[in-house]
């Protein structure tokens, strides 16, 4: 702080006034600020020149402790405590999120999850070869490129690729309609080998992806040779696929869509179902979908897997209107997710859940029927572990996505005669398999197999 010149101090001292002091009464009123402005300025005038009265006022100040004790609790109440509380809460959430992410990556469970994903994918592919939704396109396209890049760079991936043909050959034994997804899956498995890696290519509706499928199909024709291709050739193939993927979708997309339609029209619905079941009954091919080399343990160390997961796993939130939203850029921008746009039809879903009891299936169908296909439910809670997303809301609406929200399936927890009622207010998954759901009607449902079967507590 700047100091005043010495002369000012001297003159202040010299200006001291002698004479009658201010009454104790008035000084008290001054200290307690109960004087009128006129009187106050008169007292101040005196105080400026009277060191004794200044001293009296200073000495007669009420104990400062009272002032602070009055203020301190208020400050604590409004600032410090909540700050600490929220700080602890935030820290807890961060720790849980980190531990959860690490656990998922380490978990050996993804094999079954992947198998389900492949089912989901196949069903989705046959069920809805419609024009793409705008929301999922850019991200998926980007990811395809990313994957293709990784493919070219990674030696480890190339090695895996060398082993691919074995499962793909078995896959080729089933009718041609099944080969497309199968081949695609092997490609996906080869490229990254993580649960995330598959997610972008699920988009059954993407022209670019169909282009890739076509390209991949031709690539697989090369692979159809009795011996596995050497890794160099494999690289070349995937490079080709990447090239095709980069072609602008204008004219190509038309062609591709017609192809897709042809694929869909050839097999009957039941055939698709049986094939789906066939797929699910082939553990080796299921594993090969994502973990091309076969044994899970071997596939896990592929470094591409972790990186891919980090890049793609979106954040989830529910907006004020109960709409589900996800963000691929750490929450900077949010896109609406329509669970009905990509939800599989009940018939296919039925096929999807072979483990369900007959009663549960019926209950499921009943529950599903009254719901209009395009009415978006009001969501109340969403939880995601990586790309395994669960969202719940009004009237028992429970949706599950295994691919970061690109595809959704509606799940109705039921056991024997009872089904879940009320609004879903809480979803909690300790790992991808074990979860707990709380409803507004006070019911608690648990699952130990990623939502295939449910137990009411």
């Amino acid at each position, binding site marked *: 702080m700047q100091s005043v010149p010495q002369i000012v101090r001297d003159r202040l001292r010299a200006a001291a006034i002698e004479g009658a002091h201010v*009454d104790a009464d008035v000084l*008290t009123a001054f200290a307690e600020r109960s004087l009128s402005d006129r009187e106050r300025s008169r007292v101040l*005038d005196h105080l400026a020149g009277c060191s004794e009265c*200044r001293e009296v006022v200073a000495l007669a*100040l009420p104990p400062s402790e009272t002032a602070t004790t009055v203020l301190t609790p208020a400050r604590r109440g409004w600032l410090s405590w909540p700050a600490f509380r929220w700080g602890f809460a935030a820290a807890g959430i961060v720790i849980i999120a980190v531990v959860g992410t690490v656990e998922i990556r380490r978990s050996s469970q993804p094999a079954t999850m992947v198998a389900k994903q492949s089912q989901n994918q196949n069903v989705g592919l046959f069920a809805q070869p419609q024009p793409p939704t705008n929301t999922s396109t850019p991200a998926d396209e980007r990811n395809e490129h990313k994957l293709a890049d990784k493919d070219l760079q990674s030696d480890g991936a190339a090695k895996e690729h060398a082993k691919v043909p074995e499962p793909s050959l078995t896959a080729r034994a089933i009718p041609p309609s099944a080969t497309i997804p199968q081949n695609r899956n092997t490609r996906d498995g080869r490229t990254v080998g993580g649960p995330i890696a598959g997610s972008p290519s699920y988009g059954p509706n993407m022209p670019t992806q169909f282009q890739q499928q076509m390209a991949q199909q031709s690539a697989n024709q090369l692979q159809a040779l009795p011996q596995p291709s050497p890794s160099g050739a494999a690289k070349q193939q995937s490079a080709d696929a990447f090239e095709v993927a980069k072609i602008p979708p204008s004219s190509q997309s038309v062609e591709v869509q017609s192809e897709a339609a042809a694929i869909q029209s050839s097999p009957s619905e039941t055939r698709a179902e049986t094939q789906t079941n066939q797929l699910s009954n082939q553990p080796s091919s299921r594993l090969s979908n994502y973990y091309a080399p076969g044994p899970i343990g071997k596939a896990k160390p592929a470094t591409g897997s972790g990186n891919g997961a980090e890049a793609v796993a979106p954040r989830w939130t529910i907006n004020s209107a109960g709409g589900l939203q996800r963000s691929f850029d750490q929450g900077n921008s949010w896109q609406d997710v329509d669970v009905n746009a990509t939800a599989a039809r009940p018939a296919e879903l039925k096929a999807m859940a072979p483990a369900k009891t007959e009663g549960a299936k019926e209950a499921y169908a009943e529950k599903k029927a009254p719901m209009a296909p395009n009415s978006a439910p009001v969501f109340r809670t969403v939880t995601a572990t990586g790309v395994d997303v669960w969202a719940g809301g009004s009237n028992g609406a429970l949706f599950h996505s295994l691919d970061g929200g690109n595809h959704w399936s509606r799940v109705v927890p039921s056991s024997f005669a009872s089904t879940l009622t009320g609004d879903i207010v809480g979803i909690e998954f300790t790992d991808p398999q074990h979860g707990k759901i709380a409803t507004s009607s006070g019911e608690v449902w648990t699952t130990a197999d990623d939502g295939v079967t449910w137990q009411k507590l």
Partner: protein
Amino acid sequence: MSTVQSVLDDLLPDLHAKSGCEKLGLARDSFAAILLQIGAKQSAEATSESEVRTFFLTLRVDELALARACAAGHNAAWEIFLTRYREKLYQSALRIAREDSAARELADSLYADLYGTSTREGQRVSKLASYTGRGSLEGWLRTVLAQEYVNRYRRTKRLVSLDEESEEGIQFRAPEPDPVPAADPRLAQAADEALAALSAEDRTVLSAYYLDDRTLAEIARILGVHESTISRKLDKLAKALRKQILAALGRRGMSRRQAEEALEADVRDLQLDIRRSLAQESSPPAFSEKRVETRVREGPG
């Protein structure tokens, strides 16, 4: 006077009810007389009817009634007074005197004053009779204690022996510097002019900070503002004063540089330099121009 009387007539029932003076043994008439006396004293300050009304309504009539009932010697009032204020009074005294025995002495002497040991025309005169209810009774008691303490301190300050001082750790304390006439009378005039232009509050802040060495927190509490306000105010005042003194010196015919030099030169430092230079006969003749000048000026005087 008539304004006070009419307002008081109007307000008396309310004030009387609020004071609860009946329980204290104070008659309504004597309470009305006390209020009239206080109002009459205030009539110089509060002239309009609304001002008088506000004045009466802001009085702490309950505490006023208690104090005046005590002054009149009603035992019930004294009991209440002692219950409420005895402990607080000792605590306040301890805070002011900062030492137990001195605090007890201070508080006891105040009790004596409050009870009224001094007599006038055969009647005890209690100090409580001078309380007018403008501030809280507790605050008034603290102020009276502080006044008493300051009076004693000022009275006894000159009687402290050197032994006592050395016991307290103060040895060869420098004498209070007497205001030294400024080297140039124009400087003092300019400073007075700048100070006179300040508000009473600003001058009080300056005095409290630079003369009394009060802390920012103390000044803030005296004026009932935040500490940072005082800090900013002092900073602003220092800059403004400097600017205004320089301007005033300029008006008195000083060049900017002369004015700045005059302001910077601390007369006391100057004196010290002179003493030192006088003491050291053998000091080299390399005096600065200013010192030589000053010595020349001091020489004949």
